[in-house]
């Protein structure tokens, strides 16, 4: 499933790589309050938590009980323990690898958390970029909104997933990230990729969730779809024609032309696209097996490859 995008994890590298990593931490400081960049050579930024101890701290136990209270119930229990047996000695909390146990509901929540980290981190970098300063008022408003919304999603998942089974912070491949920030056009292109992928991911994951979490995912996915339409519309405004012209916000490339249904992807496909994007330095592994669902619910419609 996973491979390390862009070579060795950025945060574990030394010399110039470490410098880049520190710059990245500066950009992404909003994501650095909890959890930890477990592999940072700088001790100040190293959070090493034995998972069992952390689990029994009052704060995290309260988090865990709260999640039980919103509908995780018994489904969560095995996964809480299953998530602790991985190759990461800090209890799945480091920056080099993140393991999603797709056989559990909390694993699906972690999957969403990973995608939200990607989106939020990207938009945090966008509003801090040089290109942002040259944007129109409309573009600035949109990217500020998207940053705010995706950060809210990311921090929500950080709170709602029990700390003992929560994945750590994903590290960006700064080479890919910086290239995407070169200008407004490249930023919009990356944003479109992430937003359409987010819509497809939530649409595909809904059936793996129990009631309370399904509703929460539904509250988020329509916001992602609003973002996607806005970004796609802005790109058409910059000369990228929709199919048909004027319809890029919900073009025939993302909505089926016979049934009017939006993009939808299964987790494995989404994760392979995330890896292929080259944005994530963290190795994202999966464990467990998704619950078997009817074949009719697992068909996919992928968003188009980024253009131009």
């Amino acid at each position, binding site marked *: 499933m996973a491979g390390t995008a862009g070579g060795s994890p950025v945060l574990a590298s030394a010399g110039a790589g470490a410098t880049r990593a520190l710059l990245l931490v500066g950009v992404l400081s909003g994501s650095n309050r909890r959890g930890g960049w477990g592999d940072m050579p700088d001790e100040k930024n190293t959070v090493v938590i034995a998972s069992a101890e952390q689990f029994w701290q009052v704060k995290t136990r309260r988090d865990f009980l709260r999640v039980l209270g919103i509908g995780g119930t018994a489904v969560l229990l095995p996964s809480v323990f299953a998530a602790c047996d991985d190759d990461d000695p800090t209890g799945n909390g480091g920056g080099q690898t993140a393991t999603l146990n797709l056989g559990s509901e909390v694993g699906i929540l972690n999957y969403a958390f990973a995608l939200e980290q990607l989106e939020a981190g990207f938009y945090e970098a966008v509003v801090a970029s040089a290109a942002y300063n040259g944007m129109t008022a409309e573009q600035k408003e949109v990217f500020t*909104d998207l940053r705010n919304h995706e950060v809210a999603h990311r921090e929500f998942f950080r709170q*709602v997933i029990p700390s003992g089974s929560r994945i750590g912070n994903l590290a960006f491949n700064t080479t890919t990230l910086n290239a995407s920030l070169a200008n407004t056009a490249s930023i919009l292109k990356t944003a479109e990729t992430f937003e359409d992928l987010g819509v497809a991911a939530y649409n595909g994951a809904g059936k793996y969730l129990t009631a309370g979490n399904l509703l929460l995912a539904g509250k988020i996915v329509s916001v992602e779809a609003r973002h996607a339409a806005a970004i796609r519309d802005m790109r058409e405004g910059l000369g990228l024609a929709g199919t048909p012209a004027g319809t890029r916000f919900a073009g025939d490339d993302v909505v089926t032309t016979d049934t009017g249904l939006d993009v939808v992807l299964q987790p494995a496909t989404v994760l392979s696209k995330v890896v292929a994007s080259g944005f994530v330095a963290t190795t994202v592994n999966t464990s467990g097996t998704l619950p078997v669902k009817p074949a009719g619910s697992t068909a996919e419609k992928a968003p188009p490859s980024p253009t131009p």
Partner: protein
Amino acid sequence: MKSNESILGSIDPEITERLVSRREAIVKGASTSSMIAAGLAMGSVPVALAALSRQAFAQPPANIKAVLDFALALEIFENEFYKAVLGISSSAAQNTAFATVRPMIPAAVVTAAQQIQRHEEDHVAFLLAAGATNVFSLTADSFNFTGNRSSTTPGPFAAATTDAAFLLAVAQLAEDTGVRAYKGQAENLISDPTVLTAALRIHSVEARHASKIRRARRALTGAPAVVKWSGTISGGGSAAAGITGASAAVTAAAQAVYAGEDLTVQAGINIAALTGVPSAAAASEAFDEPLSRAAVVAIVQPFFKPDIS
């Protein structure tokens, strides 16, 4: 049979699988469906085809079917609204009603509305194929888009037929109500992952529509900032609609459409207090809220002549 092939070809791959084993049923049932006639009466080949293919489905369980029937009524409403606006309704009276405003709509908005209408029509066809029934026997003439049901006195939304900006505001109310309605029904579809997934995919298409409508409104001179370029719902209640100079009746309707959208606490977590979230406005924008079926019915009933409660 060739006709069977074309029917199956018009159905989404997700449900084709359920259809394939029942080709015979299509042949047997095709001649008896009143919905085929209804589809043709609505001027919709996809609707007629879908009605034809519906013969092939086993009836969904009652709880699922109830949601599908409700969704179908909303989609027919949306579809007929856009067809009337665009002048392609099968009802001459509906086309005439929007004759004044039609030439005032910017060309780019017409293009968007055409795409949106196609999607709504596809949703109607899809829901029929998935087992929904047009339980209220809705046709193009079942609607009063001024919001006064069967009365001949123009209702509070009559300005939509003469004012393009207000027409777009009404479209936004309709799309956002649709998004909230589907969200409110998602949990009722958990027992059928195939239908749930399809409903989620319709739900996000409606959200794309709502986003585009907002952007079209924001592009107009004097649009309030609450109509976000990002296409998201900002705040809650009537203020979230961003309609300046609205009548009391329109304000009350908008209040219902956006009631509770300003929620900032999700699963017991205060989103506004989280790291990096700058404001309560941002916290509420980040999460769209559902509406119950009863709340949706209360909002849209004025536009339906038949009682849909």
